[in-house]
């Protein structure tokens, strides 16, 4: 794992570690968008509409304040990655609360990160296929859900996760590397490879790379 340097970059970190919640709130607000994206992406579809992403973030913030001590001991983890971890745990708690025993049983032995990445394949293909828009494409989409699912499932789990982190959660390569506990270079290569695989799959989806006027093709 590479050494994060966030502490050096952010002078406020000292004050956060010292327990200054106001500064912490400020820092949290800066990361809020990306954390919101994470919640949105990872939230079980059964809970959408029942649970608000903002509420989860609120809960996570309170949680984070109480657990700053944990952050201190988790060094050299960068603040964002730590926050993401806290939000992830909150999210798991929320899922437990709402989905009950079914989920607890299945996931008891998993780390929060594992629990989160568990549904990546499903939510990702759902997201990708939602991109197809016209009614006829919608019909195509229904047909192709299985195909993309299959492709994503067939992907290496880390590849799949890399795509989700990079795009749906807007993490940088460095952060991805840190979250997954792999080398930066490896993360980058995985990213490129996953893109290429995904592209292969999407090429077979009629209308994905053509027919969308907002989609400049390679020769646009």
């Amino acid at each position, binding site marked *: 794992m590479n050494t994060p340097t966030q502490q050096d970059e952010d002078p406020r970190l000292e004050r956060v570690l010292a327990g200054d919640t106001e500064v912490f709130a400020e820092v949290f607000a800066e990361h*809020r*968008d990306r954390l*919101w*994206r994470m919640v*949105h*992406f990872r*939230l079980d579809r059964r809970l*959408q*509409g*029942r649970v608000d*992403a903002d509420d989860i973030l609120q809960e996570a913030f309170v949680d984070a304040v109480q657990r700053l001590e944990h952050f201190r001991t988790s060094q050299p983890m960068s603040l964002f990655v730590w926050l993401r971890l806290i939000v992830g745990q909150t999210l798991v708690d929320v899922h437990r609360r709402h989905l009950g025993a079914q989920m607890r049983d299945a996931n008891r032995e998993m780390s929060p990160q594992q629990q989160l990445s568990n549904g990546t394949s499903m939510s990702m293909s759902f*997201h*990708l296929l*939602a*991109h197809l*828009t*016209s*009614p*006829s*494409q*919608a*019909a195509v*989409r*229904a047909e192709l*859900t299985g195909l993309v699912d299959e492709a994503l499932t067939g992907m290496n789990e880390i590849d799949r996760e890399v*795509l989700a982190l*990079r*795009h*749906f959660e*807007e993490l*940088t*390569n460095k952060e991805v590397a840190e979250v997954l506990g792999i080398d930066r*270079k490896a993360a*980058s*290569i995985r*990213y*490129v*490879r996953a*893109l*290429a695989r*995904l*592209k292969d799959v*999407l090429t077979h989806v009629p209308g*994905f*790379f053509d027919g969308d*006027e*907002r*989609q*400049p*093709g*390679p*020769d*646009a």
Partner: protein
Amino acid sequence: MDLARIDDDTFELAASEFTSRVRRGEVPDIEEYVSRYPDLSDEIRELFPTILAMEQTKQHREFESGGKASLGARKIEQLGDFRILREVGRGGMGIVYEAEQESLGRHVAVKVLPPFALMDETHIRRFQREAQTAAQLHHTNIVPVFGVGEDDGLYYYVMQLIDGRGLDAMLVDADGEAVDPWHAADIGRQIADALAYAHEHGTLHGDIKPANLLLDQNGTVWITDFGLARALEPDATVTEHFGGTLRYMAPERFHGTTDARSDVYSLGVTLYELITGQPAFPGTTRSELLRQVTQTDPVRPRAINSRIPRDLETIVLKAIARDPDHRYQSSQAVAEDLGRFLEGSPIRARRVTSVERFWRWCRRNPALSAAICTAVVSTMMVAVLTSVGYYKSRRVNSRLQTLNSNLNGLNTDLQNSLNREQQERETAQATTQLALDALSKIFNRFAPNALYVTPVVIEDETTSDESDYTMPMQPALSPEVAAALEEMLPIYHRLAEQRGQDPTIREQAARAHHRIGLIYQQLGQSDAARAAYSDSIELLEKLRKEAPTTNVDETADTRLLTQHATVLNDLSELERVSLEFRSAEQASRRALDLIKSTAEETRSTDLQYELARAHLSLAKRTPFWHRPPNSGRRPGPPGGGRGGPNGPQGSGSRSPVSVASSSEGPDGPAPGDFQRPPGPDFPGNRGGRGRSRRGDRDGERPRDGERGADRERGGDRGDRRRRPRLTERFFGSWDDRRNHLESAIGILDELSQQRPDNPQLLILLARCYRERALQRPDRDASGFEDPDWEKAVELVSQLTNDYPEVADYRFELAEMYGDVEFWRINDETCGRRIEKRLRTALEILEELVAENPSRPAFVSAQAQMYVKLAAVYRHCDRDQKSIDMLHEAIALHQTLVERFPNVEAHMIWQVRLARLVALWQMREGNTGTAEQTLRDVIGATRQWLAAIAKEDDVSALDAQTLAGAAQSVNARDILRELGDTYFLLATLLDDEGKSVEASQARSVGNALHRRSSPRFRMPPPPPDDRPGPPPWMRNTPPPPPMPEPLASTTERG
């Protein structure tokens, strides 16, 4: 992609920059990056569009968390002139705020659109245009649109603020409780009124649903979002919030068409939900809804809420008819009928009769689930049996219990209608007739009346209020349907008994048997088909014999005769695709004699058509490798009167021995035991049903083909020399064939002049041309520039253009392309042409398979094309590609085996193909892989056999038990295939030096072969008695599915 080149951070840098620009809302030019990073141009061109797709996907999704709009982190306080006061609602297409228009000091509703909804000029212009049109609408039930605006990249839509609630919220509050029907009708009338007004002004709404309908304190309904759905389509409307919108979307919109009637539909579905308290389509996922909307009819409202007045139900059902032509044709008409309903006067909409509804339902549900089908059939039986006096029987009671509750409404209706009719007519005669009508309707729907569907009015259709009976119909095909229909056959017999062996009913029964045969044939269940045909023929023969005494109707005999000829011809086709050429020949000959026994000038068009069919069948080449089953084993390629192209050789086939030596194909001697690729007659060309398995029923009843032959032999010619006559009679001479072909073409030419638009005739004519092209002596193997072939293709192409919805015509076209002499590749050009033809055929078949997943014949044909392609590639030394093609074929057959586990033919093909792959692997020296291939397929076959025989432990089965098991289920052919596979394995093991294992395998093979079908009398090929072909080729099976271009690599000993 060269991952090594990604090693430095350059790509990462470029991608990150690109990504963040996309996130800022730009649409960066990918080519710009290409020129900035020329080293990475390939990677950028390939991957950046995917990055863009990921980002756009994310944006879309973020906007619609849980089906509701959100602007993510953005908080809006002011939009231009509008000060945002509070959020009043979120819909799929945006967030609605109450705002104060500061310049005018009035409160308005501002709908903020998703930030990505209008990404380019086209969208923005359309949005503005639609808003302008919407602003022109002035109606008491349409929310007035004030205008549109843009601020900081956010587009918004300004409307009058209505103090009301959305119907969606109302429905949520009602929590499943229905709205009072009259209140709902009033709401509906207001909406219909407003829609009628808007439609008159040329504006469609496009997204009528409860969420877009507001109800205010005074009970006035307001339609909101006019012009919005259409402005954003096809981008936002459908993307977002699909679960909501899709539910109210008219089915035709999935095909891209929409008109005023689509709004009528959406209104109808909304009304449905109001009066029943539940959505018409309850699906929650997109795919589920998609299927429900396009394929199912909702439960009838009164079945949910009996308080709904019948007239209101009628109106709602008419509004939501899936076919726009069956709906109200305008919103005006809906408004008027709702008005009539509210006033208590009679409505205009006619109630769809139960029979009609059943009919429509049937048409839309070709792929019936077994349960539903059985339930309908049971209902019919109950109804019929009840009305003819069997109501006390226990059977009826048990039937009743099995009725599917889902069909309650339908069932009750059917019974009611039958009962009502009975009361009205009060005669057994009428009831019987009614039952017959119902039966024939079901048969018309579910059973094809010909293998090829034609847009001709079905002849025994008795009711005529549905004009679309003339539409070509695709038969619904599933084993369940066939079985269910078969279950109904006793009704015919019982009805006939009731009416003293009424010949009319028995005639219908004969037709029903015939149709069931057709279904089974299409399903590849040759034995069941054969049995059904035989039953039909038997009945017809009896009827015709009795006709003079029982029937005064003169047309009856003509009709029976035509039917008789048709069934015989169908039987002949069945036999042909089952490789029973002798039986095929016999059936055709019987048809021919039958028709020839009538005077030519009295023959109907139909009869002439059947005559042409018989001629064509007799003209067809018999594959030269065909072994006449009764002549025992022959010393060479047996069979054939198929003349070579260099001159008719049929005259040489007087003796079986000379046949053997004169039957080579056009390009050199046939290889030894390994057969030449079959001619176009091999089973794959007609759907690959493979060799048939004899059913149990055949044992009880002599096959009519044999009966026919016996009769002929018993005649005055019985004492003549049999062998030559047999040969000639069974395989015909070359001249005979040509004469038959010309006769067929002559008849068809004449017929098609009288009826130029009859597709049935044209198809047959095309087949004749195809046959003639294939018999032309100097033909090019690819059919290149062959006038007959071109004519044939042209005829069929024309039909596919005229009737694009008839799958069978396209299938015919695919077969035209696929029926190519792929083993006669002379040069590379020829090879390419053949490849092209096969590819064309494959393209058509792929479409067909996608559209008709229930037709195994299509999949099977697809697999055959791959096999042929494999042969072509093999010939052109593209080995790897060839093996790939074989694997494609195997994969396809695997799906067939899985879907039709009880059809032996599919498994047989699987075994044969695997053996072929193994052969090629051996030839490449991959003996290990080949061995594995063989062992795998042996394992799969054993498992299949065990499953069929319901044995649990496969591995424990020795050859004998296995054979016994297979025999008990009549799977003899597969046993022989398995035996052959063991022999091949033995040879392979010998080559590998594993002699012990080899002899084990060989003994299993022998054990299996000894139990081979007595019908074929095929002894196991003794493994070592002949020199010649390479060792691995000796034991391959006689009817080769393999289009193996072996001519170059093999020689005869």
